[in-house]
């Protein structure tokens, strides 16, 4: 922020912000805040506890937490090596790999779900062999929920971490090598700490996206309470009959996301990094 350099340069002396920044910026805040306010204003606060402690709500919440955490684990386990390859290996940093990784971000999630069906459905590219030879059918299983969430959420992790890896000074890795550290030791003790903020941010974003996943899950995994009906699907199902229930569940989603996003930016994570 620019401040005038007066001897009594207190905050009040800060230069006036130009209106063409202040007005649209404030409008953006209002635009983002109003729907949240609407949700909170309509929330059935009096019946909140009853609505949320209903077995159906708890079931959806439990399923959502379990699948989103698993999907995040999958995204990190596969995405971290991919991010490394993209940052450092010529075979993986071409436009095609980049586009492929970005695709789930720009694809409507429903289309992502259809694509997953065409790959892993029982008539899909891979799915037909799984079904015909092993009798395994992925759609309509909890595993399918995890796959759909991982598919949609992984790019958030990969892109965040790849950017960080790309911008790290590789000479630190060289320095580690001259000190006798093998590649894994170097990655674990030198590279990882340097990209830690991005690792955390990427993981949190990935998890938040997985938690909110709707379209791909519905299309690929279906919706059945306790098996595939995650919180967002339960919200959608409830919307037609019981708005109060739907809003109560939405408030839970909102609360969990806000807590995590704030924590990810704030002291909590910085503390973890110490």
């Amino acid at each position, binding site marked *: 922020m620019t401040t005038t350099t007066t001897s009594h340069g207190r905050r009040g002396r800060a230069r006036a912000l130009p209106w063409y920044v202040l007005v649209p910026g404030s409008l953006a805040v209002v635009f983002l805040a109003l729907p949240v306010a609407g949700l909170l204003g309509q929330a059935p606060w009096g019946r909140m506890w009853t609505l949320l402690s209903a077995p159906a709500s708890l079931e959806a919440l439990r399923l959502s937490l379990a699948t989103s955490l698993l999907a995040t684990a999958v995204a990190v386990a596969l995405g971290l090596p991919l991010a490394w390859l993209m940052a450092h290996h010529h075979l993986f940093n071409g436009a095609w790999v980049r586009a492929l990784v970005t695709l789930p971000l720009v694809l409507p999630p429903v289309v992502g779900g259809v694509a997953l069906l065409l790959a892993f459905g029982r008539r899909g590219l891979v799915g037909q062999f799984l079904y015909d030879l092993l009798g395994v059918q992925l759609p309509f299983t909890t595993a399918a929920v995890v796959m759909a969430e991982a598919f949609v959420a992984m790019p958030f992790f990969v892109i965040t971490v790849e950017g960080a890896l790309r911008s790290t000074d590789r000479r*630190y890795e*060289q320095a*580690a*090598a001259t*000190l*006798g*550290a*093998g590649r894994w030791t170097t990655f674990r003790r030198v590279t990882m*700490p340097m990209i830690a903020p991005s690792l955390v941010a990427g993981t949190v974003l990935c998890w938040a996206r997985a938690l909110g996943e709707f379209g791909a899950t519905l299309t690929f995994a279906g919706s059945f309470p306790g098996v595939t009906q995650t919180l967002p699907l339960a919200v959608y199902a409830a919307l037609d009959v019981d708005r109060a229930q739907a809003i109560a569940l939405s408030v839970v989603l909102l609360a969990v996301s806000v807590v995590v996003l704030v924590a990810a930016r704030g002291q909590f994570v910085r503390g973890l990094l110490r």
Partner: protein
Amino acid sequence: MTATARARMGIDASITTRIGDFVLDLDIVAAPGRVTAVLGPNGSGKTTLLNTLAGLEPVGSGRIIVNGALVDDAAAAVFVPPERRRIGVVFQDFLLFPSMSVADNVAFGLTSRGVRATTARRSAQAWLSRLGIADLAARRPAELSGGQAQRVAMARALALEPDALLLDEPLAALDVGTRIEVRRELREYLADFTGATLLVTHDPLDALVLADEVVILEEGRVTQQGSAAGVAARPATDYVAALMGANLLRGTASEGLVTTDDGACVHVVDRTLLGPVVVVMRPEAISLHVDRPEGSPRNVWPVRVVDLESRIDRMMVRVEGPPDLSVAITLAAAADLHVAPGSALWASTKALDIDAYSRPLMGG
């Protein structure tokens, strides 16, 4: 020395590496217990040489032998990766791991090689004490001054007790004030190190002060090598001539006064120096006057001009005193002073502009 005797200890390398249009093509030998400076301008291939010796880049063709072990040989398809060469490297900007404390940085090499954490920590602490920075152990690299970071980087490289030590512009990242002090310290540590030390630099002062042997690298090739004094005395190329303009005087110090071997008196800042010393003066730091100057410079000598040589932006004036000096003055100043061979002038310099080092074991 015969080839086999050479190959036994230290670094013995014969490297040809092509990077685009640039070709690095040299033979280099660094003997154990001695400091070899590779001196060259930017783009001469110094960093490539260092990276190749460290194993961060393979040789295009040729081979590298360190303490008798073949670590890189293109023809024999031998390549020992950097983590298995016993070569310590001190990088120009030190590259201390930002997330680790100073102690962890120094212990890193040991733990990476499987030494138990407690043992490694104790060893790291010992090295820090040896370099006089034991009290910095808990700090993060971001909390260190340039000189402190340099010492930590040295400790980190030395903690592994490497067969050879590579220093990449070890003083370039430091400000001028700390550079003189750190350079003197570096001399002491290097004197204790029993392996071969290869020092890469573009600063002739580093080479003159720190090195026993100087190798001049220009455009990927060695253009001259020999003792520091020898190279300075008989420059083989323009680059060396320009570079080695620094005045190197030997003498004996006592209470801030050095009596040079040719009989001149030189005031220096460091009053603790005692006994044989080397005094280094940059030609740029010396002024010439028609009349005896009055003012702050404490070193004033009557001199006679021996010869002149004009460079692109300056005039190099050789004068005989004592002391015998090379002085750089601007072309305009040369015109004003009517400098010509045989002119009698006064030379002066501030004690602050003079570097003096004790000269314990240097031969000659």
